[in-house]
């Protein structure tokens, strides 16, 4: 079972709650996804039109709330948002996002590390959103991050996993859970992430903009479960065995006559 900072999750699918057509569709999609962790953002109350609060739309007894710091362009802004998020939610869990470039929304590694160091000192459970940089992931782990969230491809692009080599290294090296975030556009991408050994995936846009977000949520749920199952079953080993009928043909051999019997 997935465990982050001593909390267990039976679902490995995290769901973002942005961009849905309505909060009721969002709620149904979250339910259908089986997710136990949803991300939310902080914004000023729209005074002209104080819509329903998202906290009341979700069943918080079943679902962990993961506030993010979206909109923060540097460490200072992210830390301020973190304080507000903790005050508003009562949770000290945080998805740390620092995105200075408004076009690509790619995360700033330097300020992400700075903010992580500070927030860990203040007792936050920090899950930083990062580019798929293995050394950064390890530096964040060393700084006390509870998980790392490398991107599959730039956010909102639905391009799937374009950072495969780096993500593989992160998965192989990190001690903390690896949650693949951003760019997961289709259930097949999510399954692929899980087959690679990611601990979880976070999906938002792909659900929110689907023709039927609720059915898409179900599809992602199944894909994540299938991918995880395949990973645990030892996927590589199975496909490799299938070629066993041609026993290592073409493989070099070395002369070992120097070895004494």
């Amino acid at each position, binding site marked *: 079972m997935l465990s982050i900072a001593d909390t267990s999750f039976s679902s490995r699918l995290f769901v973002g709650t942005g961009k849905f057509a309505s909060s009721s569709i969002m709620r149904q999609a979250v339910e259908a996804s089986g997710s136990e962790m949803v991300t939310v953002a902080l914004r000023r109350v729209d005074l002209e039109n104080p819509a329903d609060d998202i906290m009341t739309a979700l069943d918080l007894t079943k679902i962990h709330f993961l506030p993010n710091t979206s909109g923060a362009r540097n460490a200072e802004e992210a830390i301020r948002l973190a304080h507000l998020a903790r005050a508003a939610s009562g949770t000290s869990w945080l998805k740390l996002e620092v995105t200075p470039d408004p076009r690509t929304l790619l995360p700033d590694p330097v300020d992400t590390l700075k903010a992580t160091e500070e927030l860990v000192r203040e007792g936050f459970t920090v899950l930083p959103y990062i580019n798929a940089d293995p050394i950064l992931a*390890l530096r964040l782990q060393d700084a006390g991050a509870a998980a790392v969230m490398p991107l599959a491809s730039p956010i909102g692009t639905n391009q799937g996993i374009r950072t495969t080599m780096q993500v*593989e290294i992160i998965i*192989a*090296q990190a*001690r903390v859970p690896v949650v693949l975030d951003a760019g997961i556009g289709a259930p097949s991408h999510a399954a692929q992430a899980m087959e690679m050994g990611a601990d979880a995936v976070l999906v938002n846009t792909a659900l929110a903009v689907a023709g039927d977000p609720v059915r898409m949520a179900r599809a992602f749920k199944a894909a994540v479960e299938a991918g995880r199952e395949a990973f645990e079953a*030892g996927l*590589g*080993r199975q496909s*490799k*065995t299938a*070629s*066993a009928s041609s*026993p*290592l043909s073409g*493989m*070099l*051999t*070395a*002369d*070992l*006559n*120097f*070895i*004494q*019997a």
Partner: protein
Amino acid sequence: MPPSIPQFSQLRQWLAPATGDDVRAALTGKRLDIHDLAALLSPAAEQFLPEMAARSGEVTIQRFGRTTQIYAPLYLSNFCINRCAYCGFAAGNPIPRRKLTLDEAEAEAMILYKRGFRHILLVSGEAPKTLGVDYLEAITLRLRDRFAALSIEVQPLDEDEYDRLFKAGITAVAVYQETYDRRVYDRVHLAGKKCDYDYRIGTPDRAGAAGYREIGIGALLGLADWRAEGLALGLHLQWLRKRFWQTAFTVSFPRLRPAAGAFEPLVTVSEKNLSQLMFSLRLFDPDVGLILSTREEARFRDGMLGLAPTRYSAGSCTAPGGYTSGEHDGEQFSIGDLRTMSEVCSMVAAKGFDPVCKDWDREFQTQGNSTAAPSIQQV
């Protein structure tokens, strides 16, 4: 929290079911897990040894290039408070005991320096009161400007002691568990602090916490089931890699050989077994340094070059003061490859590899500047 290695009975259960298909899968897979390692170490893999050797050689050359590192051990002292059944230095053994003075140790090091060595491994028995951290720090300060790499293979130390030696200029720590089989461990460690399996297995963690550039682990082959020993080494390596990602790791496989009057190995490990073990670990962890010392014979060392090992000792004497006196009395173990350093280097070069004596320049690294060097006369 030290790493917990499963009982050998459990490790043998991972090894037992491995089939030829599992070995083929491991040979063609890209990221091997511990079950692949089990397959490669299993009896089923023996018929694939030529394929394993070729694949291991490919990986070794891909990761390390056509180079082989060369080093020499420098024995500082053969005093020891432990009684390890397999070791000539064991307390109570009637051998001439000697601890080099700092001047003598420096003279030995300078002989190695003149022969061209830039990496030396400082070795001693485990007798902290006779040869402690003060001594090690002093000899390090004397040698550090002349050698690119200074490793130690001495008694396990505490973290603050490792920290002190790191700041003085020691670059690497080697500490071998000897065997990961607890039952055998208890049987062959008859007296002394080394009897504490858990303290010993936690030692690489303490060195890792101090920030060493390189840490060596190892098993003495001939004490317990070498296949399970290989799995345990893989697990230990995996554990350390997850904790100390900035540290490079090496593995040594000193092999006990039957010798008249000496400790009779509890199990026989052949050259074939040793090579299977080295190929397996290479395929399991493409980046790990693998050491093949002069315990092994020249014929075997020459044949293995480029197939898995990355580091060879050369021209070794394992008695304190042996380089100066030219005598091998009071050695820890006898040497299988008696060639000089330049002979070994010629062999390496003749096989198309570059013998590397110096991997880096100390000048450009931040560690060894922390402890001010006293002038040599003061020490």
